[in-house]
């Protein structure tokens, strides 16, 4: 342990202590006057020259009080005992700065969230507040004046994921005049929305509202589309990311390709399309996922191509009128420099096979919601005919089961947000197109947001039947007359208070949304964290929903959590606004909580070298010392704690600061007085 002599209390430092009443929030449980008096007298030896209490320290009058004392009494340090530093640290730092004191010489200690709101004995709470103030006073003596680091912001932006959220974000930024790279791993942008038929609650055709935006993104001079591509590596930090992107070989020369589609027509190999058609339709080995794909260029699926399997065929090449097929084409590695990144990677659907009692995958006429989207889609495998798995029978009775894989402690506890409205949409479409009797089996009906409940009312009036209860089983084992050849839904009708068996021809499982299966790896690649479920974690769930804890990385759409199209679009635009704000600043200030190496003390042991997840630590082989890049360092302090030589210091959280605060909290600084509590 190293003792430093800098800033040791030598009578030079003049500390002001300010205790906030916060109305009665603090003063109701803590004797604030006594805390201030105690600090003024018992901590006098520690440099406290003034200690005041005031009704609302964060008010402009309260701040002026501090500013006045700094100017008139020549305070060199300030301790404010009030609310959590997460709330008002910036307020008081700014007040100090206005009065000419370096803002980092101010310490805010919490006696509201950590004392008055959580304790019930006024005497004890007051004593604890004194200890907390004493800890703050000891700590602030070791504070150092700091200057924020500034870094330039590169004006280009990377957007990962070309679904509706990513497209919206890209268009906003591109329209503002800045360049955007969209990286999409599928052959076309459009995302899940491109698979849908109608969108609730207005029943707009999804393609009609989405494809113009896709075309806009595809032709915008400020947007570079990188489809059939994936991000491989991200280095750097806010304003200065170096991104490595793998552009997978399309085996099609896009310079020559006109998107005429002859290759797809001529390709002899038919493959079940598990992605776009959800397994209900076919595609060729060379394909565009759907006719309106952007870009229009097809990709060749090497795994299923007869030429790559057997060495002969080349039908696509023979018939291509522009000689665009290139079997020799290799993956391309691109390096781009961007200032900000938006992750709009979307969601995966819950695998309905996991709920074995609903029989998906075993009972032919049990469908998932995405299969239903394709069935209802006029461009889908049945041209919009709602029919059973045999491809021709129109169902007479249809059961729609809500919350499959959501709100179920066996699978996912969360609500997938869209399923109620999606089920109502299916109920309406089935009723409209087949005239079938439609049952909805729900736990709770959740229809918030504009015009959603009105849509529910409309479906109710269309005589769709609603059964409140979680379905126990879907079976084809007929027990009662009239059940033969049907799927029987066994359910407890909790409103009628009885068990029911309802025979239907078709069952639709409203499957929930899940985080992308690789969300944790993607999170790690970009240096952001995931919640326990695997959704990307936002900086603040309410007040900062599209930023992340990593500066310069934003999230939008379902990657952050289940949401519908309007919310995804809003988040895409919000993330774009945040990025534009950053670009406009041209450079930004970083919190100067950083680790740095004192070179003379570094023995070159390299213990710290492998600890940094941000790769901020470099080792100079020639001089055998370690160095930390302050722009990459995020300030966690793990290396500071690990250095056996004490050669790494962490600004804002130095050993001296923390050790002094421990002494202060344990009241070692107030002499022989016994430790209260």
């Amino acid at each position, binding site marked *: 342990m190293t003792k430093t002599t800098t800033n040791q209390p030598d009578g030079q430092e003049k500390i002001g202590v300010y205790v906030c009443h916060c109305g009665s929030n603090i003063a109701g449980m803590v004797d604030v006057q006594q805390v201030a008096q105690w600090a003024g007298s018992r901590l006098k030896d520690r440099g406290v020259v003034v200690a005041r209490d005031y009704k609302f320290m964060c008010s402009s009058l309260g701040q002026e009080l501090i500013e006045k004392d700094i100017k008139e009494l020549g305070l060199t340090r300030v301790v404010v005992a009030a609310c959590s530093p997460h709330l008002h640290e910036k307020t008081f730092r700014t007040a100090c700065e206005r009065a000419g004191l370096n803002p980092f010489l101010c310490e805010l200690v919490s006696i509201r969230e950590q004392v008055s709101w959580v304790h019930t004995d006024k005497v004890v709470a007051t004593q604890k507040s004194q200890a907390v103030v004493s800890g703050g006073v000891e700590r602030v003596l070791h504070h150092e004046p700091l200057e924020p680091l500034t870094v330039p912001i590169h004006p280009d932006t990377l957007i990962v994921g070309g679904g509706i959220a990513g497209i919206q974000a890209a268009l906003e930024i591109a329209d503002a005049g800045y360049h955007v790279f969209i990286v999409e791993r599928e052959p076309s942008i459009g995302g899940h929305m491109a698979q849908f038929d109608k969108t609730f609650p207005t029943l707009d055709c999804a393609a009609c509202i989405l494809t113009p935006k896709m075309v806009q993104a595809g032709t915008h001079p400020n947007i570079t589309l990188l489809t059939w591509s994936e991000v491989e590596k991200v280095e750097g930090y806010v304003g200065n990311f170096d991104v490595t992107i793998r552009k997978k070989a399309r085996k099609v020369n896009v310079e020559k390709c006109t998107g005429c589609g002859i290759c797809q027509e001529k390709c002899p190999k038919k493959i079940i399309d598990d992605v776009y058609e959800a397994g209900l339709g076919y595609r060729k080995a060379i394909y565009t996922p759907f006719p309106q794909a952007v870009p229009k260029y097809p990709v060749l699926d090497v795994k299923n191509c007869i030429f790559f399997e057997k060495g002969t065929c080349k039908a696509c090449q023979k018939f291509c009128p522009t000689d665009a097929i290139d079997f020799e084409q290799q993956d391309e590695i691109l390096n781009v420099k961007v200032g900000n990144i938006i992750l709009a990677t979307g969601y995966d659907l819950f695998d309905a096979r996991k709920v074995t009692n609903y029989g998906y995958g075993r009972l032919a006429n049990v469908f998932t919601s995405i299969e239903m989207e394709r069935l209802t889609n006029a461009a889908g495998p049945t041209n919009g005919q709602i029919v059973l798995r045999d491809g021709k029978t129109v169902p007479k009775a249809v059961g729609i089961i809500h919350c499959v894989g959501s709100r179920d402690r066996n699978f996912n506890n969360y609500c997938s947000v869209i399923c109620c409205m999606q089920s109502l949409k299916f109920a309406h479409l089935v009723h409209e197109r087949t005239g079938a009797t439609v049952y909805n089996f729900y736990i709770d009906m959740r229809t918030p947001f504009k015009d959603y409940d009105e849509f529910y009312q409309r479906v109710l009036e269309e005589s769709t039947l609603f059964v409140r209860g979680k379905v126990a089983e879907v079976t084809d084992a007929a027990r009662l007359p009239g059940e033969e050849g049907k799927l029987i839904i066994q359910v407890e009708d909790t409103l009628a208070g009885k068990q029911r068996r309802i025979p239907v021809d078709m069952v639709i499982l409203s499957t929930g949304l899940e985080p992308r299966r690789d969300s944790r790896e993607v999170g790690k690649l970009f240096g952001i964290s995931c919640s326990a479920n695997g959704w990307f974690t936002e900086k603040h769930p309410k007040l900062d929903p599209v930023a992340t804890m990593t500066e310069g990385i934003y999230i939008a759409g379902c990657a952050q959590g289940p949401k519908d199209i309007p919310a995804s679009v809003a988040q895409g635009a919000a993330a774009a606004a945040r990025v534009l704000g950053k670009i406009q600043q041209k450079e930004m200030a970083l919190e100067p909580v950083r680790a740095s190496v004192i070179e003379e003390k570094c023995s070159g042991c390299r213990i710290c070298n492998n600890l940094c997840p941000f790769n901020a630590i470099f080792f100079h082989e020639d001089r055998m010392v370690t160095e930390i890049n302050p722009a990459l360092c995020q300030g966690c302090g793990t290396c500071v704690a*690990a250095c056996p030589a004490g050669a790494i210091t962490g600004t804002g959280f130095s050993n001296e600061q923390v050790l002094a605060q421990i002494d202060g909290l344990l009241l070692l600084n107030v002499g022989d007085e016994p430790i209260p509590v």
Partner: protein
Amino acid sequence: MSDVFEPVIVGFTCNWCSYRAADLAGTARMKYAPNIRLIRLMCSGRLDPTFVFKALANGADGVMITGCHPGECHYLEQNYKALRRFHLMRRTLKGLGVEPERVKLVWASAAEGAKFASEVTAFVEEIRALGPLHWGKALGNGSTPNVAEEAVGKEKMEVAA
């Protein structure tokens, strides 16, 4: 009051999860034992074992370390390093003849105010059952005891290895 032993506990919280959990406990007006005094660090990975030994040596009866849940660290994986050090600290304490239970590691996310509150109250009871440490007094209150420094030095070597 005077008959009951009231332990003094120093709590180290990470800035992102557990300090926010403590904030949330406050905002939600959950009540917990007042024996804990918190120090905010940027990350549980910042926790130098020296801090723990110094706190115990200077009068604390217990130390509670809190961090983000495994896999949810704001700094990706630094809480795992805290976990590693935590086990070594407990072993070192045992070697020094101190109950290793005096140091506790708790994961609390920013949403787990209730968990934070109940963990604090439970830990206070655990330390109350163990009784006062008196380490500080035995070694001369106020000065940093050599034994703690030696222990820390030894531990760092182990972490390094």
